[in-house]
């Protein structure tokens, strides 16, 4: 049976991972390639690289990093951040990305998803939505959660999926950073509205939060987190063992053998 995916997210600025880490055995904790291999070996099922660079120099560094990572590790890579045009899709796909996640770019130009899905297939296009409750309504925010678009989130996500987005990353601004667990209510609403895979993001503070997520909402396909992995609070191997003990089907990494 298909396994639940655990996805660490790396924020990259000017070619370096932001948010410090305190891993042992990792010489340069801010080196995205080293960190990506570390996660891959630990059993990460997929990696998200998020480009938070604003300058074109930073962007060039980012694609360089992406290329080096794709040459080194062989699990699916999703790229987000600064994706506004088909050329941006092309740029990161050529460097080894498998999926591209769009957020503000799709809000500015909803046809972007259509166009990209036609050109690269639905499986390549991920809609990433930053959602917050405003007056009791799930509302989409743009520009890294700074700008209220006024759009109702469930209908927005449904529209993106209708346009060809093959996966949804739901980031709850309400639970993000609180470290008290994923936003189960919001996730449930999205899972009921779409038939494509849904990736939960925002709120993981401990390994048990992933158990609660997959136990409560079996429809959720994957859990994404950044800081708890980077700071070593949760180790992916331990997390997967805990999930397996709780009857959740995950991919276990077997001992590496020589090729």
């Amino acid at each position, binding site marked *: *049976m*298909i*396994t639940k*995916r655990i996805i660490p997210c790396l924020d990259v600025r000017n070619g370096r991972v932001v948010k410090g880490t305190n891993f042992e055995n990792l010489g340069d904790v801010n080196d995205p390639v080293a960190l990506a291999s570390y996660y*891959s070996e630990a059993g990460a*099922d997929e990696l998200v690289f998020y480009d938070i660079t604003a300058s074109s120099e930073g962007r060039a560094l980012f694609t360089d990093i992406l*290329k080096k990572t*794709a*040459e*080194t*590790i*062989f*699990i*699916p890579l999703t790229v987000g951040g600064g994706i506004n045009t088909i050329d941006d899709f092309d740029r990161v*796909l*050529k*460097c*080894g990305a*498998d999926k591209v996640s769009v957020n503000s770019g799709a809000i500015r130009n909803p046809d972007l998803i259509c166009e990209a899905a036609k050109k*690269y*297939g*639905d*499986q390549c296009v991920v809609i990433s939505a930053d959602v917050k409750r405003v007056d009791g309504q799930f509302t989409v925010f743009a520009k890294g959660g700074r700008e209220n678009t006024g759009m109702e989130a469930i209908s927005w996500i449904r529209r993106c999926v209708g346009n060809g987005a*093959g*996966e949804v990353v739901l980031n709850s601004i309400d639970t993000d950073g609180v470290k008290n667990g994923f936003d189960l209510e919001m996730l449930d609403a999205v899972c009921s509205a779409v*038939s*494509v*895979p849904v990736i939960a993001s925002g709120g993981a503070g401990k390994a048990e939060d992933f158990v609660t997520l997959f136990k409560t909402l079996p429809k959720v*396909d*994957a859990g994404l987190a950044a800081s708890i992995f980077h700071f070593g609070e949760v180790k992916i191997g331990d997390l997967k063992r805990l999930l397996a003990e709780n009857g959740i089907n995950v*991919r276990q*990494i*077997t001992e*590496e*053998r020589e*090729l």
Partner: protein
Amino acid sequence: MTAIIDYGVGNLFSLKSSFAAIGCEAVVTGDPDVIAESERIILPGVGAFEDAARKLRDSGLDRVVIRETEKGKPLLGICLGMQMLFEKSYEYGEHAGLGLIAGAVRPMKGVIPDELKIPHIGWNGLIFPKNRERSALYRYIDEGDCVYFVHSYYGADCDESVSALTEYGALLTASVERGNVFGTQFHPEKSGSVGLRILKAFTEIE
């Protein structure tokens, strides 16, 4: 040398990199002479069957692949590349494939329970059929090892060729094999060290 067939479909960066990672020379090429000189062939593919099959035909590489395969050269089709080995596909109509594997590619919809999502996307375990010897592709991995799938259609009517299955509400074809022709529905180049070991095993097939 392994020839990774470039016919304008899909992203070959990871595939090429994965051969470098296992220390095997691979060339991404659409040149019939290079393909003729190669020791083995990879037929990749993502996207829609009709479009990919047309591009392969228009490039004339379909005949090159068939000719080289008939000489006994090992061929590995990956994902849509595996599906193209079949006689036909029912993805949006009916389209002819290369006919190297008996069977048809059919939609998963209706075959798997309605509550399961399509595409089948993510890591799933390999099941080896009891009634046949283990494929040479799997000499370095174990039954149950997980590999990465992304697909909405599957290889059907191909019982004799199935070398591995995976369970997604139903048993689906994970890989096929007939003589020197191999195909994996999953992406070995995205399946971590298990995937690299499968590619390594392929490069050792004579």
